[in-house]
């Protein structure tokens, strides 16, 4: 016989499962058993039904699906015998849940059993109902349960009380029916009925304010008396735990008193004496006593103020806190968190002990203590507390460092009295646990550094020093690299020395060394390396003597396997090699980053980033005043102007854009058609401004760039660039490619000219097909830069005359187009004449978006209708 047939006893199945050495073996045994049970179910086997269900419960506990046994539970419940019912109800509670429709079928059986003459069967039904009933069943069976609250046997009354809790939670409307029966349960002597009755009252108070009022008025005195009786009761062997009678009941009573006393001075007054008695008389050398004290303290903290009691409570917590038992210390910390809301001063007195708990070896205690310290910090104690925490950071466990770092950063940011202290503390954190620092935290640090103009030198030197000792902390390296790139000259020349600093001698080549280490370190990630490349580019202009060496490092990365680094290296190398004249302007120091914008975006888009602090509390640092950006390049980078459309919705990207560390591929801003990629794109690409839409370049720079359109530049000049960098397809058309070439070369020689003369625009072959050419000539009205006058000239390239010539044009919403009548509607053959037509385009987004136009040209050739359509997107920029 198959040893795993449904005939196996439960015991044998468990043995078989225990004997399994691997999970696969266990699965096989379970599969066989399940198959046998399914077969037995199909045969409607009566004899082994309860045995099969017992097996299923075991199988379910092991984590295998057992839904096929659900109907068996119902059949067992419907059977007459007690043992069958018993196992059926157990199966019901374990295998089913209130969400399953099968449950509906059990309502009737439950109703019958609730009215059964055998009280044990009534008890079973109550227990099942209390554990799994749904709202619908609650409505159907509430009257039965209500009746059972007055059943003669206390064991039924206690179960009916807990069953009522389930019912009023499912259907709060039914609560009022239970108020009176619940109140009468409080007068009982049986502990089981008392504890469940108190629990029922507690839950009634939670769902119904009416019940709360009722119990507050009618039952407070009675509950106080019950508690006093229990507390003073003589030895009761059945309920005694460590010399205390029924601590569970104590705790339930204290919980209900807490709810009644909260917000009601009279009720609170009424319970003062008994609370004082419990707080002073309860033995505190055993766990049971401490559990009661703990609950008592919480009640004292929650009810209306009574100075004397609170002092008592805080003292108990103080005693708990110095207890050697970790469990007690844990609950003390837990309770002190709540006490903070009531009496912060009293909790501050235990600061030293709490701080010791942060250093405990137990993770649960550490976590609680850290939360508490976080609440304890204020402007007055932030310095010593942060010092302690940072010192501990050095020795703490790896798993704890993440939490600890986040909390320190948040505290330092929230309470820092001055910038230099903030920067100092952050540098310490970065050096100790830089790998745990979140992106937005070091971004914020850079914003603060950038704003602290008089501390630039100090900061960069401190970072340089830190970098010498801790090279493995990613975020430290990033911040250091950024600062060395920006303020490298201050590092070398000891600019802005503070009195507290030790002078250091750093040569230009030392500074480059630091960056080189960062870029060559294997563990550096992409962002760090990309930032290092930018820093190198910046240093190349700050340290002319090192520029050759810098170029070598950049060239080494030309073959980098990561496309982003490769592209940056190639582009930067081009700047170094061929565009010396614009380099210094390109790598100007970053303008001061706007703190308000950054913190605004951060708070707006990353509410969870500082979840533990009170929703983005403004830091106390004075906002740096943005100095007017001097260099043209600054305009290009200046994102703080108001009308900049957010390149992407996430605020975190904002700073990344600014820092040029965004590694995501440039994406076109949504909502506009792909703007024409004219020459400035290249420059933007060069600066790796990530998601920055090209249209954001501001006028002065692009004027200069796009207007230098003379065709003297050899195409080959930028071969490397065009072939390797990700230019838009448009850029490969000869006209725009040429303009792109020139803008870099032509930038140096005579940039002034254009500014003086105002912009002039070359004519453009806007459309050309085998049969037709259309050229545009542009002019601007002085004093009205938004409006462009376009003269369109049409030339016939075919040998046939075009009749009924009609030109139509459409523009996007931000443009306005006015078409004048054409000079003629007949276009002579073979270029022997032309039609001209004037267009007036007004660009409401002048300086941000370029013109773009769809055209349609219809005419008759040899009496046949011809239609030509096209899109013009290669307008010169800045029209």
């Amino acid at each position, binding site marked *: 016989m198959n040893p795993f047939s449904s005939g196996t006893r439960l015991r044998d199945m468990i043995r078989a499962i225990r004997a399994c050495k691997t999970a696969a073996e266990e699965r096989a045994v379970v599969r066989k058993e399940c198959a046998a049970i399914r077969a037995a179910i199909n045969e409607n086997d009566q004899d082994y039904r309860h045995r099969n269900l017992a097996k299923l419960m075991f199988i379910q506990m092991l984590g295998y699906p057992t839904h096929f046994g659900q109907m068996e539970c119902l059949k067992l419940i419907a059977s007459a015998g007690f043992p069958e019912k018993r196992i059926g109800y157990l199966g019901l509670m374990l295998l089913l849940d209130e969400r399953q429709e099968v449950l509906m079928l059990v309502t009737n059986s439950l109703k019958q059993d609730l009215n059964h003459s055998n009280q044990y069967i009534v008890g079973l039904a109550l227990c099942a109902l209390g554990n799994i009933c749904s709202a619908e069943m609650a409505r159907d069976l509430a009257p039965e349960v209500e009746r059972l609250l007055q059943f003669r046997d206390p064991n039924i009354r206690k179960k009916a009380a807990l069953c009522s809790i389930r019912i009023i939670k499912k259907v709060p409307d039914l609560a009022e029916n239970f108020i009176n029966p619940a109140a009468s349960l409080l007068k009982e002597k049986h502990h089981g009925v008392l504890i469940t009755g108190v629990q029922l009252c507690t839950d009634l108070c939670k769902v119904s304010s009416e019940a709360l009022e009722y119990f507050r008025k009618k039952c407070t005195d009675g509950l106080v008396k019950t508690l006093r009786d229990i507390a003073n009761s003589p030895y009761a062997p*059945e309920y005694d735990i460590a010399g205390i009678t029924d601590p569970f009941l104590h705790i339930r009573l204290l919980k209900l008193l807490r709810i009644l006393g909260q917000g009601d001075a009279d009720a609170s007054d009424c319970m003062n004496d008994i609370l004082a008695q419990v707080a002073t008389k309860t033995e505190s050398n055993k766990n049971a006593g401490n559990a009661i004290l703990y609950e008592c303290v919480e009640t004292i903290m929650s009810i209306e103020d009574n100075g004397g009691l609170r002092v008592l409570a805080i003292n108990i917590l103080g005693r708990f806190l110095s207890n050697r038992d970790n469990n007690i210390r844990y609950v003390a910390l837990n309770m002190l968190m709540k006490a903070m809301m009531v009496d912060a001063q009293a909790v501050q007195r235990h600061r030293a002990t709490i701080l010791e708990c942060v250093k405990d070896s137990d993770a649960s205690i550490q976590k609680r203590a850290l939360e508490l310290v976080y609440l304890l910090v204020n402007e007055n104690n932030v310095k010593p507390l942060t010092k302690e925490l940072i010192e501990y950071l050095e020795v703490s466990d790896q798993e704890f460092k993440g939490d600890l770092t986040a909390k320190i950063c948040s505290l330092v940011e929230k309470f820092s009295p001055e910038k230099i202290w903030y920067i100092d503390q952050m540098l310490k954190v970065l050096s100790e646990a830089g790998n745990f620092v979140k992106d937005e935290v070091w971004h914020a640090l850079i914003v603060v550094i950038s704003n602290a103009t008089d501390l630039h030198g100090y900061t960069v030197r401190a970072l340089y020093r830190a970098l010498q000792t801790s090279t493995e902390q990613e975020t430290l390296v990033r911040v250091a690299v950024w600062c060395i790139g920006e303020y490298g000259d201050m590092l070398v020349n000891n600019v802005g020395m503070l009195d507290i600093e030790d002078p250091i001698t750093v040569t230009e080549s030392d500074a480059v060394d630091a960056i080189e280490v960062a870029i060559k370190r294997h563990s550096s990630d992409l962002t760090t390396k990309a930032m290092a490349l930018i820093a190198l580019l910046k240093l190349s202009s700050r340290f002319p003597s090192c520029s050759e060496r810098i170029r070598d490092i950049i060239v080494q990365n030309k073959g980098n396997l990561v496309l982003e680094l490769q592209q940056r290296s190639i582009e930067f190398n081009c700047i170094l090699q061929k565009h010396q004249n614009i380099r210094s302007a390109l790598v100007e120091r970053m303008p001061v980053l706007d703190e308000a914008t950054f913190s605004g975006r951060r708070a707006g888009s990353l509410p969870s980033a500082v979840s533990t602090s009170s929703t983005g509390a403004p830091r106390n640092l004075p906002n740096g005043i943005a100095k007017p950006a001097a260099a043209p390049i600054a305009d290009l980078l200046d994102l703080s102007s108001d009308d900049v459309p957010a390149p992407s919705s996430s605020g975190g990207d904002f700073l990344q854009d600014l820092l040029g560390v965004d590694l995501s591929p440039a994406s076109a801003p949504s909502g506009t058609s792909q703007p024409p990629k004219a020459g400035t794109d290249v420059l933007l690409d060069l600066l790796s401004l990530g998601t920055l839409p090209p249209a954001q370049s501001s006028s002065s720079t692009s004027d200069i760039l796009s207007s230098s359109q003379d065709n003297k530049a050899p195409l080959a000049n930028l071969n490397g660039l065009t072939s390797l960098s990700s230019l838009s397809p448009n850029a490969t058309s000869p006209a725009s490619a040429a303009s792109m070439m020139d803008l870099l070369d032509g930038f140096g020689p005579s940039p002034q000219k254009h500014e003086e003369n105002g912009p002039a625009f070359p004519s453009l072959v806007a459309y050309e097909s085998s049969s037709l050419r259309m050229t545009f000539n542009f002019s601007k009205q002085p004093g009205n830069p938004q409006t462009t006058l376009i003269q369109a000239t049409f030339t016939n390239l075919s040998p046939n005359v075009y009749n009924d010539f009609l030109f139509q044009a459409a523009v996007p919403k931000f443009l306005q187009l006015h078409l004048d009548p054409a000079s003629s509607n007949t276009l002579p053959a073979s270029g022997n004449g032309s039609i001209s037509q004037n267009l007036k385009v007004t660009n409401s987004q002048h300086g941000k978006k370029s013109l773009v136009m769809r055209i349609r040209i219809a005419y008759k050739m040899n009496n046949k209708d011809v239609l030509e359509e096209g899109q013009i997107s290669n307008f010169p920029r800045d029209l």
Partner: protein
Amino acid sequence: MGIRFILMVNKQGQTRLAQYYEWLTLEERRALEGEIVRKCLARTEQQCSFVEHRNYKIVYRRYASLFFLVGVDNDENELAILEFIHLLVETMDRHFGNVCELDIMFHLEKAHFMLEEMVMNGSVVETSKTNILTPIQLMDKAS
């Protein structure tokens, strides 16, 4: 509702009894049990008996090779739950006589019956060992 679930797990991390008072899918249960057991079993004797996990607080206590883990709401009295675990063990001791892992394994339904008499819908029903065991002994006698 104070108690969310009660687990008994042996030293190897195998579940020996699981009673949930809120519905979780089978996958969620397996995942939860795995995570909790890993967390609790790694702790030393000296560390406190409370572990915070997701939105639960786990109160656990070890008896020989068996861990008793109780998941509770955050506002539950942890010390009282510890006392409750002890009561549960004493009750089982009285019934089985020096209860061990195998008693619970082979008499899973009895262990559940006891639990049923002690906890309903996440709240404590009865704290007297005699009251808890009477219905079970009656049933034993009858069969």
